[in-house]
């Protein structure tokens, strides 16, 4: 069986992400330099100062940003040529949920990415997801009336309902208060999918398996949290 076919048989995190000689340049400014990586852990974090290239890096992994040089493949799917297939298996939660929530009400927004499924399947997924994350009572609510935490939860639910194998979270707790940070952290902890997350909240990353430290577009450290976090703290001191 080819590598490409594995994704539909197995909901686990056993998929692989490969970056081969990947550079990203915007106009004349190189944002990421010659990255070569094989990612197959379940919990991967990307840390770095503002402007270090974290957001560009994670956007590469579901084809929102295409490499200027090199290739990114997810389970054999090339992000450049097979962007749609990649985005079906890699969900993306943006930093600001307001920009990710597309539709006017909670239910309509959850349905956005799964419109093409059968009605019964859509209903099942909506019901299950909203129930699991405590949003069922808000099903008909207009999204601009939700609190910040509820919006972030809805953004995550909008991705989960598509049942991706990998979820990318770009600084998911940045705009939240302490209570909602804890709540989102708990939810992330309990997800079964592979998680790739950028964050400035180092406490959130302690349970992760692998941490990539980016600095000015270069990957300067790649290790477990026990090594990578102290290294990053020294770098930022």
């Amino acid at each position: 069986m080819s590598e490409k076919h594995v994704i539909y048989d197995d909901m686990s995190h056993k998929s692989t992400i490969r970056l081969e000689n990947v550079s990203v340049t915007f106009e004349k400014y190189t944002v990421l330099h010659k990255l070569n990586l094989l990612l197959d852990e379940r919990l991967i974090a990307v840390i770095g100062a503002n402007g270090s290239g974290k957001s560009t890096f994670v956007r590469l992994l579901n084809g929102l940003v295409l490499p200027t040089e090199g290739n990114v493949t997810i389970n054999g799917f090339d992000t450049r040529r097979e962007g749609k297939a990649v985005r079906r298996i890699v969900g993306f939660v943006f930093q600001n949920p307001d920009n990710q929530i597309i539709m006017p009400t909670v239910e309509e927004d959850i349905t956005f990415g799964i419109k093409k499924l059968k009605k019964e399947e859509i209903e099942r997924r909506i019901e299950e997801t909203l129930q699991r994350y405590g949003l069922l009572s808000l099903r008909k609510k207009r999204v601009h009336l939700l609190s910040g935490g509820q919006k972030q939860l809805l953004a995550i639910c909008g991705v989960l309902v598509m049942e991706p194998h990998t979820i990318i979270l770009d600084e998911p707790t940045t705009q939240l208060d302490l209570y909602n940070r804890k709540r989102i952290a708990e939810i992330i902890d309990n997800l079964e999918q592979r998680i790739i997350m950028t964050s400035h909240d180092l406490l959130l990353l302690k349970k992760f398996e692998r941490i990539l430290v980016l600095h000015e577009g270069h990957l300067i450290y790649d290790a477990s949290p026990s090594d990578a976090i102290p290294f990053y703290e020294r770098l930022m001191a």
Partner: protein
Amino acid sequence: MKIIADHTLDTSFIHGLWPGFKLTVLFGFNLFLFFINRLYIIITALVITLLLYKVAGFSSIRIWQKVRSVWVFFAVLFVFHLFFSSWQNSLIVVLRLASLLLLAGLFTLTTPSSQIMETLERYFIGLQSFGAHPAKISLALSLTLRFIPILGQIIHEVHEAQQARGSEGNIMNMTMPMIIRTLKISEDVASAIEARCYDNDA
């Protein structure tokens, strides 16, 4: 008058009507009113509209909430028309507009936005032969409904920031940050639509 994305969850007879039927009635009613210039018919139309609000279970307060933000506009329009025509004609113009807006408001109050979009999408299918893309039109309308409150919030934030820096009521100072933030949002939303697997061919 707030006529966007504010449908209620009541289950009156009007709430239960097929959205396509409601939209057709709204369209026909509007067309009819445009060609009518008799005051008693316009007043009857307004009374019918108000009765429909009652049938749908809305209180007089709700009707007032719909009209209060535009009553000044109606007053100015009435005075403006008085300069050029009789008071009867001025009243016709204002009452006609009030009926149209109230009926459109009733439609959005009793129909979820997803159903409005689905209905419009079906209506736009006829335009496909002219190169129109119903799903895209429908998405654009949904985005409009979704982002009006966000744009309102941006205006509020930019205005507050300007006030904090001692510059009040200067439209020009507000324009640039507004444009920049709106462009940034539109870029992010486009990425989000792509990331959430929106199918162009839907």
